[in-house]
Protein backbone atom coordinates (compact mmCIF):
# COMPACT_ATOMS: atom_id res chain seq x y z
CA UNK A 1 0.00 0.00 0.00
CA UNK A 2 1.19 3.48 -0.83
CA UNK A 3 2.38 5.59 2.08
CA UNK A 4 1.12 9.11 2.71
CA UNK A 5 3.27 12.13 1.92
CA UNK A 6 3.40 15.03 4.34
CA UNK A 7 4.89 18.52 4.18
CA UNK A 8 6.84 18.80 7.43
CA UNK A 9 8.89 21.93 6.87
CA UNK A 10 8.92 24.86 4.50
CA UNK A 11 11.33 27.62 3.56
CA UNK A 12 10.60 30.48 1.20
CA UNK A 13 12.63 33.34 -0.19
CA UNK A 14 10.38 35.54 -2.30
CA UNK A 15 9.53 39.10 -3.20
CA UNK A 16 7.62 39.19 0.10
CA UNK A 17 9.20 38.72 3.50
CA UNK A 18 8.48 35.00 3.66
CA UNK A 19 11.70 33.67 5.21
CA UNK A 20 10.32 33.96 8.75
CA UNK A 21 8.11 30.91 9.23
CA UNK A 22 6.40 32.39 12.28
CA UNK A 23 4.97 35.15 10.06
CA UNK A 24 2.46 34.81 7.24
CA UNK A 25 2.39 37.74 4.85
CA UNK A 26 2.02 40.14 7.79
CA UNK A 27 3.21 42.96 5.56
CA UNK A 28 2.21 42.90 1.89
CA UNK A 29 4.94 44.53 -0.19
CA UNK A 30 2.89 46.16 -2.95
CA UNK A 31 5.61 46.26 -5.61
CA UNK A 32 5.28 48.70 -8.46
CA UNK A 33 7.43 47.35 -11.27
CA UNK A 34 7.76 45.23 -14.40
CA UNK A 35 10.22 42.92 -12.65
CA UNK A 36 10.36 42.23 -8.91
CA UNK A 37 13.31 40.87 -6.93
CA UNK A 38 13.28 38.88 -3.72
CA UNK A 39 13.40 40.33 -0.22
CA UNK A 40 16.78 38.95 0.84
CA UNK A 41 17.35 37.49 4.28
CA UNK A 42 20.74 38.06 5.91
CA UNK A 43 22.54 35.26 4.06
CA UNK A 44 25.49 35.42 6.45
CA UNK A 45 23.24 34.06 9.18
CA UNK A 46 22.95 30.83 7.19
CA UNK A 47 25.97 30.47 4.89
CA UNK A 48 29.66 30.84 5.82
CA UNK A 49 31.18 33.80 3.87
CA UNK A 50 33.84 31.60 2.25
CA UNK A 51 31.14 29.34 0.79
CA UNK A 52 28.80 32.20 -0.11
CA UNK A 53 31.21 34.20 -2.25
CA UNK A 54 30.93 31.87 -5.24
CA UNK A 55 27.20 31.30 -4.86
CA UNK A 56 24.84 32.91 -7.34
CA UNK A 57 21.69 34.48 -6.00
CA UNK A 58 19.55 31.42 -6.82
CA UNK A 59 21.94 29.16 -4.93
CA UNK A 60 21.97 31.41 -1.88
CA UNK A 61 18.18 31.64 -1.88
CA UNK A 62 17.86 27.86 -2.20
CA UNK A 63 20.43 27.00 0.45
CA UNK A 64 18.75 29.33 2.94
CA UNK A 65 15.22 28.15 2.07
CA UNK A 66 16.42 24.54 2.45
CA UNK A 67 18.02 25.20 5.83
CA UNK A 68 14.87 26.93 7.09
CA UNK A 69 12.72 24.00 5.90
CA UNK A 70 15.01 21.40 7.49
CA UNK A 71 15.15 23.32 10.74
CA UNK A 72 11.38 23.47 10.91
CA UNK A 73 11.10 19.76 10.19
CA UNK A 74 13.59 19.13 13.00
CA UNK A 75 16.09 17.49 10.66
CA UNK A 76 19.78 17.94 10.03
CA UNK A 77 19.80 15.64 7.04
CA UNK A 78 17.47 14.31 4.35
CA UNK A 79 17.58 11.15 2.25
CA UNK A 80 17.30 12.98 -1.06
CA UNK A 81 17.32 16.42 -2.66
CA UNK A 82 15.11 17.09 -5.67
CA UNK A 83 15.15 20.50 -7.30
CA UNK A 84 12.96 22.03 -9.95
CA UNK A 85 14.23 25.02 -11.93
CA UNK A 86 13.30 26.46 -15.28
CA UNK A 87 16.41 28.52 -15.94
CA UNK A 88 18.93 27.32 -13.34
CA UNK A 89 21.73 29.70 -12.47
CA UNK A 90 20.91 32.04 -15.32
CA UNK A 91 23.11 34.94 -14.11
CA UNK A 92 26.24 32.83 -14.28
CA UNK A 93 25.11 31.46 -17.65
CA UNK A 94 24.78 35.03 -18.89
CA UNK A 95 28.15 35.94 -17.41
CA UNK A 96 29.88 32.97 -19.01
CA UNK A 97 28.29 33.41 -22.44
CA UNK A 98 28.90 37.18 -22.38
CA UNK A 99 32.56 36.54 -21.57
CA UNK A 100 32.83 34.18 -24.55
CA UNK A 101 31.41 36.87 -26.85
CA UNK A 102 33.06 39.95 -25.33
CA UNK A 103 36.54 38.43 -25.07
CA UNK A 104 36.42 36.58 -28.39
CA UNK A 105 36.49 33.14 -26.74
CA UNK A 106 39.61 34.05 -24.74
CA UNK A 107 40.18 34.54 -21.01
CA UNK A 108 37.37 32.25 -19.87
CA UNK A 109 37.25 31.81 -16.11
CA UNK A 110 36.06 28.64 -14.41
CA UNK A 111 33.74 29.94 -11.70
CA UNK A 112 30.82 31.20 -13.76
CA UNK A 113 31.01 28.10 -15.97
CA UNK A 114 30.98 25.75 -12.98
CA UNK A 115 28.06 27.65 -11.47
CA UNK A 116 26.06 28.07 -14.65
CA UNK A 117 24.48 24.63 -14.85
CA UNK A 118 20.93 23.96 -13.74
CA UNK A 119 21.92 21.30 -11.23
CA UNK A 120 24.41 23.56 -9.44
CA UNK A 121 21.65 24.46 -6.98
CA UNK A 122 20.99 20.87 -5.91
CA UNK A 123 24.73 20.23 -5.74
CA UNK A 124 25.41 23.24 -3.54
CA UNK A 125 22.55 22.36 -1.19
CA UNK A 126 23.99 18.84 -0.90
CA UNK A 127 27.45 20.26 -0.16
CA UNK A 128 26.05 22.55 2.54
CA UNK A 129 24.06 19.71 4.12
CA UNK A 130 26.72 17.08 3.37
CA UNK A 131 23.92 15.01 1.83
CA UNK A 132 25.28 12.14 -0.26
CA UNK A 133 21.87 10.76 -1.19
CA UNK A 134 19.80 10.90 -4.39
CA UNK A 135 20.15 14.32 -5.99
CA UNK A 136 18.14 15.17 -9.07
CA UNK A 137 17.16 18.34 -10.89
CA UNK A 138 14.12 18.73 -13.12
CA UNK A 139 14.15 21.37 -15.85
CA UNK A 140 10.73 21.49 -17.41
CA UNK A 141 9.69 25.14 -17.83
CA UNK A 142 6.72 25.97 -15.61
CA UNK A 143 6.28 22.31 -14.69
CA UNK A 144 9.80 22.06 -13.21
CA UNK A 145 8.67 22.21 -9.58
CA UNK A 146 5.77 19.83 -10.15
CA UNK A 147 8.09 17.35 -11.90
CA UNK A 148 10.36 17.41 -8.84
CA UNK A 149 7.31 17.03 -6.61
CA UNK A 150 6.05 14.01 -8.53
CA UNK A 151 9.44 12.31 -8.21
CA UNK A 152 9.55 13.00 -4.46
CA UNK A 153 5.97 11.84 -3.97
CA UNK A 154 6.51 8.59 -5.87
CA UNK A 155 9.68 7.77 -3.93
CA UNK A 156 8.01 8.47 -0.58
CA UNK A 157 4.87 6.53 -1.48
CA UNK A 158 6.93 3.52 -2.46
CA UNK A 159 9.08 3.77 0.66
CA UNK A 160 12.29 4.26 -1.30
CA UNK A 161 13.14 7.33 0.80
CA UNK A 162 11.71 8.67 4.04
CA UNK A 163 12.60 12.35 4.00
CA UNK A 164 13.08 14.36 0.83
CA UNK A 165 13.93 18.00 0.33
CA UNK A 166 12.05 19.23 -2.73
CA UNK A 167 11.91 22.74 -4.07
CA UNK A 168 11.60 25.18 -6.91
CA UNK A 169 14.02 27.99 -7.67
CA UNK A 170 14.63 30.57 -10.36
CA UNK A 171 16.66 33.77 -10.30
CA UNK A 172 16.37 36.88 -12.45
CA UNK A 173 19.10 37.50 -15.01
CA UNK A 174 19.53 40.95 -16.52
CA UNK A 175 20.04 39.84 -20.13
CA UNK A 176 17.31 37.19 -20.02
CA UNK A 177 14.90 39.76 -18.58
CA UNK A 178 15.79 42.19 -21.38
CA UNK A 179 15.02 39.48 -23.95
CA UNK A 180 11.66 38.75 -22.33
CA UNK A 181 10.83 42.45 -22.54
CA UNK A 182 11.64 42.49 -26.26
CA UNK A 183 9.31 39.56 -26.96
CA UNK A 184 6.54 41.06 -24.79
CA UNK A 185 6.57 38.30 -22.19
CA UNK A 186 7.04 41.08 -19.64
CA UNK A 187 4.38 43.76 -19.34
CA UNK A 188 5.15 46.95 -21.29
CA UNK A 189 4.10 49.14 -18.36
CA UNK A 190 4.90 49.40 -14.67
CA UNK A 191 2.15 47.69 -12.71
CA UNK A 192 1.24 47.94 -9.05
CA UNK A 193 1.11 44.42 -7.62
CA UNK A 194 -2.32 44.88 -6.10
CA UNK A 195 -3.62 46.01 -9.51
CA UNK A 196 -2.01 43.18 -11.49
CA UNK A 197 -5.22 41.52 -12.61
CA UNK A 198 -6.71 44.85 -13.68
CA UNK A 199 -3.78 45.67 -15.96
CA UNK A 200 -5.50 44.33 -19.11
CA UNK A 201 -2.23 44.16 -21.01
CA UNK A 202 -0.18 41.29 -22.41
CA UNK A 203 2.79 39.83 -20.54
CA UNK A 204 3.52 39.28 -16.88
CA UNK A 205 5.44 40.97 -14.08
CA UNK A 206 8.53 38.79 -13.76
CA UNK A 207 9.98 37.68 -10.45
CA UNK A 208 12.27 35.18 -8.77
CA UNK A 209 12.38 33.06 -5.65
CA UNK A 210 13.16 29.77 -3.94
CA UNK A 211 10.59 27.65 -2.13
CA UNK A 212 11.76 24.41 -0.52
CA UNK A 213 9.82 21.77 1.39
CA UNK A 214 10.72 18.79 3.52
CA UNK A 215 8.43 15.93 2.54
CA UNK A 216 8.15 12.81 4.64
CA UNK A 217 6.11 9.66 5.27
CA UNK A 218 5.79 10.60 8.92
CA UNK A 219 3.27 13.12 10.18
CA UNK A 220 4.58 15.27 13.04
CA UNK A 221 3.57 18.43 14.96
CA UNK A 222 5.24 20.68 12.37
CA UNK A 223 3.27 19.11 9.49
CA UNK A 224 1.56 21.58 7.17
CA UNK A 225 -0.49 19.34 4.90
CA UNK A 226 -0.67 16.06 3.05
CA UNK A 227 0.20 15.97 -0.64
CA UNK A 228 -2.65 14.01 -2.19
CA UNK A 229 -1.97 14.21 -5.89
CA UNK A 230 -0.06 16.01 -8.65
CA UNK A 231 -0.79 15.91 -12.37
CA UNK A 232 0.97 17.76 -15.16
CA UNK A 233 0.12 18.42 -18.81
CA UNK A 234 2.48 19.80 -21.40
CA UNK A 235 -0.40 20.81 -23.63
CA UNK A 236 -3.99 21.28 -22.58
CA UNK A 237 -6.39 23.25 -24.78
CA UNK A 238 -8.32 25.98 -22.99
CA UNK A 239 -11.61 24.25 -23.73
CA UNK A 240 -10.42 21.16 -21.85
CA UNK A 241 -9.11 22.79 -18.67
CA UNK A 242 -12.41 22.61 -16.77
CA UNK A 243 -12.93 18.96 -17.68
CA UNK A 244 -9.32 18.12 -16.79
CA UNK A 245 -9.81 19.69 -13.34
CA UNK A 246 -13.02 17.75 -12.73
CA UNK A 247 -11.41 14.53 -13.96
CA UNK A 248 -8.39 15.14 -11.70
CA UNK A 249 -10.71 15.51 -8.70
CA UNK A 250 -12.65 12.40 -9.70
CA UNK A 251 -9.48 10.34 -9.93
CA UNK A 252 -8.90 11.34 -6.30
CA UNK A 253 -12.49 10.49 -5.33
CA UNK A 254 -13.40 14.14 -4.93
CA UNK A 255 -16.14 16.38 -6.28
CA UNK A 256 -15.97 20.13 -6.95
CA UNK A 257 -17.94 20.70 -3.72
CA UNK A 258 -15.18 18.97 -1.72
CA UNK A 259 -12.69 21.70 -2.56
CA UNK A 260 -12.51 24.49 0.04
CA UNK A 261 -10.01 26.65 -1.79
CA UNK A 262 -8.56 27.00 -5.28
CA UNK A 263 -5.07 28.49 -5.60
CA UNK A 264 -4.64 29.94 -9.08
CA UNK A 265 -1.55 31.09 -10.96
CA UNK A 266 -3.08 34.15 -12.67
CA UNK A 267 -0.33 36.54 -13.71
CA UNK A 268 -2.39 39.33 -15.24
CA UNK A 269 -1.51 38.43 -18.85
CA UNK A 270 -4.67 39.31 -20.70
CA UNK A 271 -3.78 36.78 -23.39
CA UNK A 272 -3.47 33.74 -21.13
CA UNK A 273 -5.38 34.40 -17.90
CA UNK A 274 -8.46 33.14 -19.74
CA UNK A 275 -7.19 29.61 -18.98
CA UNK A 276 -7.85 30.36 -15.31
CA UNK A 277 -11.23 31.86 -16.15
CA UNK A 278 -12.29 28.37 -17.22
CA UNK A 279 -12.05 27.34 -13.56
CA UNK A 280 -12.91 30.68 -11.94
CA UNK A 281 -16.28 31.15 -13.59
CA UNK A 282 -17.29 27.73 -14.87
CA UNK A 283 -16.28 25.19 -12.23
CA UNK A 284 -15.31 26.83 -8.96
CA UNK A 285 -17.60 29.87 -8.99
CA UNK A 286 -18.96 28.86 -5.57
CA UNK A 287 -15.54 28.04 -4.14
CA UNK A 288 -13.15 30.45 -2.46
CA UNK A 289 -10.29 31.40 -4.81
CA UNK A 290 -6.88 32.95 -4.22
CA UNK A 291 -4.02 34.05 -6.48
CA UNK A 292 -0.39 34.78 -5.65
CA UNK A 293 1.75 35.88 -8.60
CA UNK A 294 1.21 39.54 -7.69
CA UNK A 295 3.19 38.69 -4.55
CA UNK A 296 6.09 36.78 -6.09
CA UNK A 297 6.09 37.63 -9.79
CA UNK A 298 6.07 35.15 -12.67
CA UNK A 299 8.91 32.68 -13.10
CA UNK A 300 9.15 29.05 -14.12
CA UNK A 301 8.88 27.80 -10.55
CA UNK A 302 6.46 30.45 -9.25
CA UNK A 303 3.98 27.62 -8.61
CA UNK A 304 6.24 26.53 -5.73
CA UNK A 305 5.24 29.83 -4.09
CA UNK A 306 1.59 28.82 -4.64
CA UNK A 307 2.42 25.49 -2.97
CA UNK A 308 3.97 27.44 -0.07
CA UNK A 309 0.87 29.64 0.18
CA UNK A 310 -1.51 26.66 0.19
CA UNK A 311 0.61 24.90 2.84
CA UNK A 312 0.53 27.97 5.08
CA UNK A 313 -3.24 28.39 4.69
CA UNK A 314 -3.88 24.72 5.49
CA UNK A 315 -1.73 24.78 8.60
CA UNK A 316 -2.75 28.18 9.99
CA UNK A 317 -6.33 28.23 8.63
CA UNK A 318 -5.62 31.90 7.97
CA UNK A 319 -6.16 33.43 4.56
CA UNK A 320 -4.48 36.82 4.07
CA UNK A 321 -6.70 39.46 2.42
CA UNK A 322 -4.05 40.29 -0.16
CA UNK A 323 -4.48 36.93 -1.96
CA UNK A 324 -8.29 36.85 -2.17
CA UNK A 325 -9.60 36.57 -5.70
CA UNK A 326 -13.37 36.33 -5.13
CA UNK A 327 -15.92 37.03 -2.42
CA UNK A 328 -16.70 33.44 -1.43
CA UNK A 329 -15.56 32.60 2.10
CA UNK A 330 -14.91 29.04 3.21
CA UNK A 331 -15.55 28.29 6.87
CA UNK A 332 -12.51 25.98 6.99
CA UNK A 333 -9.72 24.93 4.65
CA UNK A 334 -9.47 21.17 4.43
CA UNK A 335 -8.83 20.37 0.78
CA UNK A 336 -7.03 22.73 -1.57
CA UNK A 337 -6.61 22.51 -5.33
CA UNK A 338 -3.78 24.34 -7.10
CA UNK A 339 -3.80 25.06 -10.81
CA UNK A 340 -1.02 26.70 -12.76
CA UNK A 341 0.01 27.22 -16.38
CA UNK A 342 2.31 29.60 -18.21
CA UNK A 343 1.43 31.04 -21.61
CA UNK A 344 -1.08 28.27 -22.19
CA UNK A 345 1.44 25.46 -21.71
CA UNK A 346 2.75 23.24 -18.93
CA UNK A 347 -0.35 22.99 -16.80
CA UNK A 348 -0.38 21.47 -13.34
CA UNK A 349 -3.02 20.38 -10.85
CA UNK A 350 -1.98 19.73 -7.26
CA UNK A 351 -4.13 18.59 -4.35
CA UNK A 352 -3.27 19.25 -0.72
CA UNK A 353 -5.22 18.12 2.34
CA UNK A 354 -5.30 19.41 5.89
CA UNK A 355 -3.77 17.07 8.46
Amino acid sequence: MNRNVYINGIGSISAQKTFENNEFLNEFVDHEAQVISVVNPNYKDYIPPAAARRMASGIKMSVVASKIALQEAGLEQVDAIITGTGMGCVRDSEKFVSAIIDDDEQYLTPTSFIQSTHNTVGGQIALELQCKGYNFTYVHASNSFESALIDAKLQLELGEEHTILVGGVDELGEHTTALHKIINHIKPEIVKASQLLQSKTEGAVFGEGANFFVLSNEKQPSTYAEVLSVKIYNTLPKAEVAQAAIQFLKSNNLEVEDIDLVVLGNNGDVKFDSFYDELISKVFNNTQQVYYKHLCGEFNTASSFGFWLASKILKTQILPDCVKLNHVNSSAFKTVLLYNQYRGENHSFTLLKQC
Partner: protein
Amino acid sequence: MEALKQELKKNIIEQINLEDMTVEDIANEDLLFGGGLGLDSIDALELIVMLDKNYGIRLTDPKEGRAIFESINTMAAYVAEHRTK
Protein backbone atom coordinates in the same frame (compact mmCIF):
# COMPACT_ATOMS: atom_id res chain seq x y z
CA MET B 1 54.45 50.28 -8.00
CA GLU B 2 52.04 51.31 -5.23
CA ALA B 3 49.37 52.15 -7.80
CA LEU B 4 49.82 48.71 -9.38
CA LYS B 5 49.41 47.04 -5.98
CA GLN B 6 46.18 48.92 -5.34
CA GLU B 7 44.97 47.97 -8.84
CA LEU B 8 45.79 44.30 -8.22
CA LYS B 9 43.88 44.32 -4.93
CA LYS B 10 40.88 45.87 -6.64
CA ASN B 11 41.02 43.32 -9.47
CA ILE B 12 41.38 40.39 -7.06
CA ILE B 13 38.38 41.52 -4.99
CA GLU B 14 36.30 41.88 -8.15
CA GLN B 15 37.51 38.76 -9.95
CA ILE B 16 37.04 36.32 -7.10
CA ASN B 17 34.09 38.04 -5.53
CA LEU B 18 35.46 38.86 -2.09
CA GLU B 19 32.19 40.61 -1.31
CA ASP B 20 32.98 41.90 2.15
CA MET B 21 36.53 43.05 1.49
CA THR B 22 37.91 46.41 0.47
CA VAL B 23 41.35 47.32 -0.88
CA GLU B 24 42.29 48.51 2.62
CA ASP B 25 41.60 45.04 4.06
CA ILE B 26 44.40 43.43 2.05
CA ALA B 27 47.95 44.15 3.21
CA ASN B 28 50.73 44.00 0.61
CA GLU B 29 52.44 41.16 2.45
CA ASP B 30 49.31 39.09 3.31
CA LEU B 31 49.43 35.49 2.12
CA LEU B 32 46.83 35.06 -0.61
CA PHE B 33 46.61 31.27 -0.40
CA GLY B 34 46.70 28.88 2.53
CA GLY B 35 46.26 31.29 5.44
CA GLY B 36 45.66 34.98 4.78
CA LEU B 37 42.85 35.43 2.29
CA GLY B 38 42.28 31.67 2.13
CA LEU B 39 42.03 31.45 -1.63
CA ASP B 40 41.85 28.03 -3.30
CA SER B 41 42.71 26.33 -6.58
CA ILE B 42 39.69 27.73 -8.46
CA ASP B 43 40.75 31.21 -7.37
CA ALA B 44 44.24 30.46 -8.70
CA LEU B 45 42.71 29.78 -12.12
CA GLU B 46 40.77 33.04 -11.90
CA LEU B 47 44.00 34.92 -11.09
CA ILE B 48 45.88 33.27 -13.97
CA VAL B 49 43.13 34.41 -16.37
CA MET B 50 43.18 37.89 -14.81
CA LEU B 51 46.94 38.22 -15.42
CA ASP B 52 46.50 37.14 -19.03
CA LYS B 53 43.53 39.40 -19.72
CA ASN B 54 44.68 42.54 -17.91
CA TYR B 55 48.47 42.39 -18.28
CA GLY B 56 49.14 40.04 -21.17
CA ILE B 57 51.00 37.56 -18.96
CA ARG B 58 50.56 33.87 -19.72
CA LEU B 59 51.52 31.50 -16.92
CA THR B 60 52.07 27.93 -17.95
CA ASP B 61 54.06 26.49 -15.06
CA PRO B 62 51.94 25.92 -11.90
CA LYS B 63 55.07 25.99 -9.71
CA GLU B 64 55.82 29.44 -11.04
CA GLY B 65 52.29 30.52 -10.04
CA ARG B 66 52.78 29.45 -6.47
CA ALA B 67 55.63 31.93 -5.98
CA ILE B 68 53.98 34.73 -7.97
CA PHE B 69 50.69 34.51 -6.10
CA GLU B 70 52.24 34.43 -2.65
CA SER B 71 51.27 38.04 -1.84
CA ILE B 72 50.37 41.35 -3.45
CA ASN B 73 54.06 42.30 -3.23
CA THR B 74 55.18 39.25 -5.24
CA MET B 75 52.37 39.63 -7.76
CA ALA B 76 53.09 43.31 -8.33
CA ALA B 77 56.83 42.66 -8.79
CA TYR B 78 56.13 39.92 -11.36
CA VAL B 79 53.50 41.95 -13.23
CA ALA B 80 55.74 45.05 -13.36
CA GLU B 81 58.54 43.00 -14.87
CA HIS B 82 56.58 40.85 -17.33
CA ARG B 83 53.52 42.81 -18.39
CA THR B 84 52.98 43.26 -22.13
CA LYS B 85 49.98 45.53 -21.80
